[in-house]
């Protein structure tokens, strides 16, 4: 082999590497939330009855509605990837748009939920919350922190999907090269999965 030639075994674009990187990133997200789930487990174990009482104040209907919204948005996300693989750019764009819309709807519900809790005085540092038991304070602390961090992820996910829509329009994401959209989809599914755990832990323990 002469020194002038390059065997080019090194790929300049390696989707498998990107995919592995994405999965590792999702792993870090899981351990990030893992710390919070660990705290939840410990505090629920030490304050079982109080968690039970505190959870009664949450609106199970809105929680269920939000669960179905987020699950459906995962479906539309997956459909947008299938659409682009079949070469249907506009359909893929619509599905991505619908996914963002569902994300907005989820956040809107969350907004009403949080406002309701804040109106009745269930927020950190409020007098009415401080007058309650320590278990209830912890429950609401965890509720705001965990659903808040999750909502932040929903917002980031929506921004990412918006960028993907732009890429799809400019044909950077296309029939043959759509890993970016798939990675965004993986992220969105992660956000969905975390919610699936948050929902029963906060809404269904009353």
């Amino acid at each position, binding site marked *: *082999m002469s*020194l*002038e*030639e*390059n*065997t*080019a*075994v*090194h790929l*300049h*674009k*390696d989707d*498998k*590497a*990107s995919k*592995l*990187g994405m999965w*590792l*990133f999702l*792993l*870090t*997200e899981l*351990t*990030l*939330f*893992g*710390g*919070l789930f*660990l*705290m939840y487990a*410990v*505090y629920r174990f*030490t*304050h079982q009855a109080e968690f039970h009482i505190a959870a009664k104040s949450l609106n199970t209907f809105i929680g269920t509605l939000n669960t179905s919204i987020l699950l459906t948005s995962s479906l539309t996300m997956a459909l947008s990837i299938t659409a682009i693989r079949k070469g249907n750019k506009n359909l893929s764009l619509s599905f991505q748009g619908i996914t963002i819309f569902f994300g907005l709807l989820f956040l809107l519900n969350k907004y009403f939920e949080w406002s309701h809790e804040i109106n009745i005085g269930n927020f*950190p*540092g409020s007098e009415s919350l*401080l007058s309650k*038991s*320590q*278990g209830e*304070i*912890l429950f609401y*602390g*965890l509720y*705001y*922190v965990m659903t808040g*961090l999750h909502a932040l992820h929903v917002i980031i996910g929506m921004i990412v999907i918006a960028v993907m829509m732009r890429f799809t329009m400019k044909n950077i994401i296309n029939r043959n090269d759509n890993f970016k959209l798939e990675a965004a989809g993986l992220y969105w599914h992660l956000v969905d999965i975390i919610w699936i755990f948050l929902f029963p832990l906060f809404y269904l323990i009353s």
Partner: protein
Amino acid sequence: MADNSTAIKTKNHESYLDYKGKHSGLLGWILSTDHKRIAILYLVVISAWFLIGVVIGFLIRLELLTPGGTIVGAQTYNAFFTVHGIIMLFLFVIPGIPAIFGNFFLPIMIGAKDVAFPRLNLLTWYLYVIGGAFVIIAIFLPGGAPDSGWTFYIPYSIRTSTNMIITLSATFILGFSSILTGLNFIVTIHRMRAPGMGWFKMPLFPWALYATGWIQVIVTPIIGITLLLVIVERVFGVGLFDPSLGGDPILYQHLFWIYSHPAVYIMAVPAMGVITEIITVYSHRTIFGYKAIAYSSLAIALLGSLVWGHHMFSSGMSDTANFVFSLLTFLVAIPSAIKVFNWTATLYKGSIELEPPMLYALAFIFLFTIGGLTGIMQGTLSLDIHLTDTTFIVGHFHYIIFGTAGFGLFGGLYHWFPKMFGRTYNKKLAKVGFWILFTGFNILYFPMFVMGWLGMPRRSYDYLPEYQSYQVISTVGSWILILGLILIVYSFIKALRSGERTTEKNYCGGETLEWKVETPPIHENFYEIPIVTGGPYEYKQNELEPEGVN
């Protein structure tokens, strides 16, 4: 994804130092995605932080020269040891070896042109710099430098009026940088090894980085969320840690050490990788127990993630938990000892050259053994009660962290310096610097074991007069150590400015791929990607193999 669109043929034979990319001058460095340039960027900033940390350490020792206030009062002293800890851990040893040598040599040693995600790699450097800037802001903003100790223990860290939020944000950002570096290395090792380089043909430094990468990726997010919660606690008073609202400060300690104990291995394991390379090169012998060393890195990563509780023996855990954590702590000693025995066995009947890197490697084994054995003492429940919060622990972790990550870094720098910069250094000066550093190190830290055994508390600016003789010895040791450091830094600066230029590819008789590329390496490392056929350390006894790409 490599972001370059250059043709398949690499026409450019210039060294990476002279390579002209899209930008020139300083921009050509701070916008470069070349792993070697990023490594140098890291080297520059990490060195600066190290020197700042050393100055603060010097001031801490000076304060302890006499009982009572010597140069500063209690509050400033608290800020000193807090900032010293934050700088040395989060800005020096945690990024240290992976960010400098990992970036520079990992792709070369596995026969790749770059890491898997070069732009992400550059981003980690920016995150690192931003995190460092936050630390500077936290020190100088009105409100006062952080004074909680680098462990940010609850409830003090949510009560103190000093600049905690900025400090916590800094460590959060630095954690992000560390995670992304680890992620990048794991993917690089999985996907970019040269043809023929199976897992067990990979040199042991990449193996160490691989184990480290997994620790970084898995545990760093936990400290991220924990420190974020302390910020939330301070801003909103949520009560998740605050005992007055029902929170559990012990839970904070668990979450903190779930990261921060494995973080010790983020510091030590890459240094062990560097030492492994140095020992095999300068004893001109095939490494003894290749697989044992590779697996022991993974074993340390795994077991090291399960022993965090030994930081909390006196915090009020159950006896069962204490017992289990103590047992697991003893188990970590096994893979650590496997490494030490394999290094020693490699030296046996080797033709040892006492070059500067080798001196650091041998000192590493010596210091690591002292640090490791004193660690076992503290892992013993009954002894730990006596030793908790004394200077014994301070001596122990300086032997471990400075003795491994610090000596590994200096050893690695002398080992690879001519390869990185194409200049030789003055070996005599380097050796003198080493001996002074090594002497100062032991005079500085060994009295801490004795004082601690006698009951001298850590983190106290004042002490009873009977400890003074030890404190004076220790402080004098710090002066000797700093003299050594000055000589070492001088030797590098002198080498950079006026060291003899060299283009010798293999100046030390190494066998791994970095000794088969140009000195200094060209832009994409290889003229052609090598095809690997043999193992990484096939030394014929005392005989240098001919040069050239495989």
